[in-house]
């Protein structure tokens, strides 16, 4: 895949259709893949990477990049195209300045899950028939591919590209995913159990703001979390209240716009399952206001930007089953 992508990018650069390419390059470690801009064929040849660790969603970078001079080539996985569509809907990107090549998505790997098995000092990872051959400084190790898959890929919602100029590979389908299973499991717990679960998770938060910075829906130029008067400005949480408040507000601000790309949980250095908060909102919107998938199209109105006279009352929450 990587070869085909480099060739495609080189060809588009040579034809003058695009001026820049946004892709990924390797950081310090093999599993440390980060988005990068390439301007020449040599740079592509040298640094461009697309492998099982390339999970980063580049849609958000296009907010800034598409406003620059010239056209940019972006390789988007199916989940990234949802985010991109949502950005078009919100007029955050200049569509004409982006050339989209759709590429097949995951499942992608989570280095943390490999490390959890006690495999450290990773030098290279190869996928051979869904067994990972991991070369480490201490020798070679193996583990099943599906035990190291990212949570967001394990409950993939769609392999279908929502928007593209060109496709590399086959067009996929919208999947029947099990993504609400964990939300349902939590809903069926008692209030005390839920409270304990979330205290345990949210108390790990160090307020690094990675979840906010990576989120393709969080694109406000002035963020409430940067405002010193908001009472929730950037600093380590001093009280459990601040942890709760940050995560409620963060999830609420993207409610109805979150495409469930799962980047928030992927980047969390503390492994907090943040996507559960977003999924709870998605699930509620689906039950209360009808099925809605953000990023599926560029014309429909977001659920929180419209209303129906027949909407349920807020007290429906209080009338729901036992505590």
């Amino acid at each position: 895949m990587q070869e085909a992508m480099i060739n495609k990018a080189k060809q588009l650069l040579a034809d003058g259709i695009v001026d820049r390419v946004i892709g990924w390059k390797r950081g310090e470690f093999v599993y440390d893949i980060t988005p990068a801009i390439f301007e020449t064929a040599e740079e592509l040849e040298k640094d461009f990477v697309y492998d099982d660790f390339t999970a980063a969603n580049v849609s958000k970078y296009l907010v800034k990049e598409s406003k620059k001079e010239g056209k940019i080539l972006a390789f988007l996985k199916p989940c990234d195209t949802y985010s991109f569509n949502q950005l078009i809907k919100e007029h955050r990107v200049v569509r004409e300045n982006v050339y989209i090549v759709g590429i097949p998505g995951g499942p992608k790997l989570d280095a943390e899950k490999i490390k959890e098995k006690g495999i450290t000092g990773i030098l290279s990872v190869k996928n051979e028939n869904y067994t990972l051959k991991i070369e480490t400084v201490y020798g070679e190790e193996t583990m099943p591919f599906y035990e190291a898959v990212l949570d967001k890929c394990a409950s993939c919602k769609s392999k279908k590209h929502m928007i593209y100029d060109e496709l590399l590979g086959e067009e996929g389908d919208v999947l029947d995913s099990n993504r609400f299973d964990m939300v349902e499991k939590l809903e069926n717990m008692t209030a005390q159990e839920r409270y304990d679960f979330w205290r345990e998770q949210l108390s790990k938060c160090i307020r690094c703001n990675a979840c906010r910075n990576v989120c393709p829906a969080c694109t406000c130029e002035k963020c409430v979390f940067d405002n010193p008067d908001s009472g929730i400005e950037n600093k380590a949480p001093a009280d459990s209240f601040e942890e709760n408040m940050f995560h409620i507000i963060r999830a609420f601000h993207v409610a109805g716009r979150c495409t469930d790309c799962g980047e928030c949980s992927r980047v969390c250095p503390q492994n907090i399952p943040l996507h559960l908060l977003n999924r709870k909102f998605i699930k509620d919107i689906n039950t209360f206001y009808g099925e809605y998938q953000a990023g599926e199209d560029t014309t429909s109105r977001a659920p929180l930007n419209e209303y129906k006279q027949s909407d349920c009352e807020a007290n429906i929450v209080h009338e729901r089953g036992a505590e």
Partner: protein
Amino acid sequence: MQVNENKEFQPLIVAFCCNWCSYAGADLAGTNRLNYPDNIKIIRVPCSCRVNPMFILRAFQRGADGVILCGCHPGDCHYTSGNYFTRRRMTLLFSMLDFLGIERDRTRVEWVSAAEGAKFAATMNEFTEAVKKLGPNRRLEDLRCRKQ
């Protein structure tokens, strides 16, 4: 001599009331000399949709034990549609608070028109009783804001 009456837990309740209906409803309750508990602290807002989730959370942070949001009946909004948006937002927010294990009876949305002084008083009495039963807000409090 001991005064036992004062030992009962007295909750602090914040009521966001929209200027056009609920605030006038509270006024009517007053002029009709209807009783409602002094635990209720009313904050007047131009429209119920002025209240964003931060307001509710910040009220809890500053020591509220319950938050109630009152607005015009759906269809009667002074700004045509504000309360419809409130309704969607608050449904999602309350559901999220419930999801985080925070007692759902601490929050409520009630529609009170300017002519419903009696409903205002009854709602506030009932809500205060419900919050009293729950006891002090411990799950969504900020220890730094607790008064000794």
